[in-house]
């Protein structure tokens, strides 16, 4: 009887939730002039799912886009140069990172003249000294810091998707959104006026974004791979690569976390079997 009620309960809950999920019933239209924001499409990421790992070459390409384009406005305060040599990350060699860091001038009040060449232990220097400077240079808008931005843009998913997400371990809503946003610059539909200094973007809440379209085809030159194959130098590819880089930036320890997960769950499964056998043996002679 309890089992039956359980099933009944589950059915009722799903019914209520499916009903609640029907947006037509619940959401009153807020602004009829602004076109609705389309659903962010799920992209195939190399780091999705329990077996997912970052693609080192993609992270390097994404870093290139960040360094050459995005970092002129966006900071990444929690990124140290040394992180770029991490295994499971872009994995540059120690010499490469040292050379890269040395090309930056770091403010250091203890150094002669207040500046010195960067070291691998230094944090990525921010493009603007203060928030006010950043806003002044960007028409009043603040380019958000990149350190955990990919996680801060995670997407809320309707029922029953969020339930399935526990099994597929979908955590890539942020990169999905960033990829969609970077490809979302379109001309405004008739009837929609874009405020001065803003740009129309399909995926940005309210559609008027302060960031000008940052990427254009061919803007960043990718090196050819060892087999001579070239990755396309298109906005689509740049967006994909930089979103992957941002995902790594917000979750650099992904590999180690998942590896530990496999070991822990394998141990727990084995331990559970042993305990179940022990429990069965102990309870063998008890009527219960």
């Amino acid at each position, binding site marked *: 009887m309890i089992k039956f*009620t359980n099933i009944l309960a589950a059915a009722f809950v799903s019914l*209520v939730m499916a009903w609640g999920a029907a947006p037509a019933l619940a959401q009153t239209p807020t602004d009829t002039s602004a076109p609705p924001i389309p659903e962010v499409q799920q992209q195939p990421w190399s780091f999705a799912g*329990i077996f997912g790992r970052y693609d080192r070459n993609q992270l390097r390409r994404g870093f290139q886009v960040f360094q050459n384009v995005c970092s002129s406005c966006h900071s990444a305060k929690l990124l140290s140069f040394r992180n770029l040599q991490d295994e499971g990350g872009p994995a540059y060699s120690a010499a490469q990172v040292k050379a890269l860091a040395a090309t930056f001038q770091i403010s250091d009040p203890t150094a002669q003249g207040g500046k010195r060449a960067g070291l691998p232990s230094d944090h990525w220097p921010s493009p603007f000294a203060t928030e006010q400077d950043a806003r002044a240079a960007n028409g009043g808008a603040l380019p958000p810091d990149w350190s955990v931005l990919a*996680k801060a843009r995670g997407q809320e998913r309707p029922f029953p998707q969020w339930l399935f997400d526990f099994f597929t371990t979908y955590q890539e809503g942020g990169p999905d959104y960033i990829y969609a946003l970077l490809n979302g610059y379109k001309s405004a539909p008739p009837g929609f006026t874009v405020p001065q200094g803003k740009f129309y973007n399909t995926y940005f809440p309210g559609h008027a974004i302060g960031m000008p379209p940052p990427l254009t085809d061919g803007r960043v030159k990718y090196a050819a791979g060892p087999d001579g194959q070239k990755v396309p130098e298109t906005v689509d590819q740049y967006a994909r690569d930089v979103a992957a880089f941002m995902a790594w930036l917000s979750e650099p320890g992904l590999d180690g976390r998942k590896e530990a*997960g496999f070991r*822990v769950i394998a141990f727990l499964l084995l331990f559970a079997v042993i305990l179940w056998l022990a429990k069965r043996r102990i309870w063998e002679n008890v*009527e219960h």
Partner: protein
Amino acid sequence: MADHQGSYTTERGFIGWWDQRLPIIRGTRELILNYPTPKNLSYWWTFGSILGAMLIIQIVTGLALSMHYTPNAQLAFDSVELIKRDVNGGRLIQAVHSVGASMFFLALYIHLARGMYYGSFKAPREALWLLGCLIFVLSIATAFFGYVLPWGQMSYWAATVITNIFAAIPVIGDPLLQWLRGGFAVDNPTLNRFFSLHYLLPFVIGAIVVLHIWALHIPGNNNPTGVEVKSGRDTVPFHPYYLVKDLFAVVVFLIPFAWVAFFAPDILGHADNYIPADPLVTPPEIVPEWYFLPYYAILRAIDFPIWFIDSKLLGVIVFGAAIVVLFFVPWLDRARTRSGRYRPAFRIVFWIFVLDFLMLMYLGSKPPEGIYVVLAKIGVLYYFVYFLIILPLLSRYETPRPLPASISESVLRPARS
């Protein structure tokens, strides 16, 4: 002295020497290992042990985190990120702690529901129930304080919304609010005291858990039949029977826990909490963690005044009453039959109550508009009708099914249920 000896035969050697001075080993054996436990407990009864394990995990991971965390409004957000990035194993410790809070509440709600269904709060177990309710309230407070510590947008605005509850109290509301926050708005002093309380309360919970277990061991366990233990035939010693069974249940419970903590550690959190706290920007939606959603829905469902009580104060009163009413359950449900298994009508209203709770949980995550508000009001109504009207009336008018004469009898000839 002789009557303190019990059935225990004095050990020789060091243990005997020690037990004569402080009988802690003997006490453990008599009170815990040999504790007579009904032999028919189902797996619903393992959640007590699971909760004990969860509390230990939270305290151990929390201790490690507190060694690296900085409770300062300027530094807190980055310090949590630095724990994840630069502390050895920090990503895992933080993930286990934040997912652990969710798993703790999952187990806690199941444990509570089990107590309600099988009438584990009825005489002579009222003290056990009251202490359990107290642990629930303290856990809510602890989890709330902990949620504020990463100092993201959701942390900040949750702290603002929840402390604002006290401003609804007439006359003393505003001064009380300022006293609680340590200022006119949530800021560094608030973060500091929340950190202090978040560190303190788990140990208070630990102490009450000891009393809770003590209050369990005086009357002994309830069981799925609700029939009291009649003879030694009805029980088995806790060790090894339930020690191994509970350990098995704990390990099984840890598997989904580990799955989420290691493979999707951010899935239970809100994306906005990765935006550092900003007093000037209100997030589009302020949503608490999933385990507070039913009570959040209750708080928001009351959007109308009654007499001289304005809607805000009324919402707070109803919200508080929703938790306080739990303490009175032993005196609301006076049915002589403990177990819901033998109460046909109770069983139906109980499962509707569970569905109602889940519905409120869902509604708490939705914006307070349209059909959601109507459903939330129905949900709140049933919540209170269940406790205040249905339970007292059912205990008068319901005819329970015949009970088995003893636990052993029910085991040998299971009732069709």
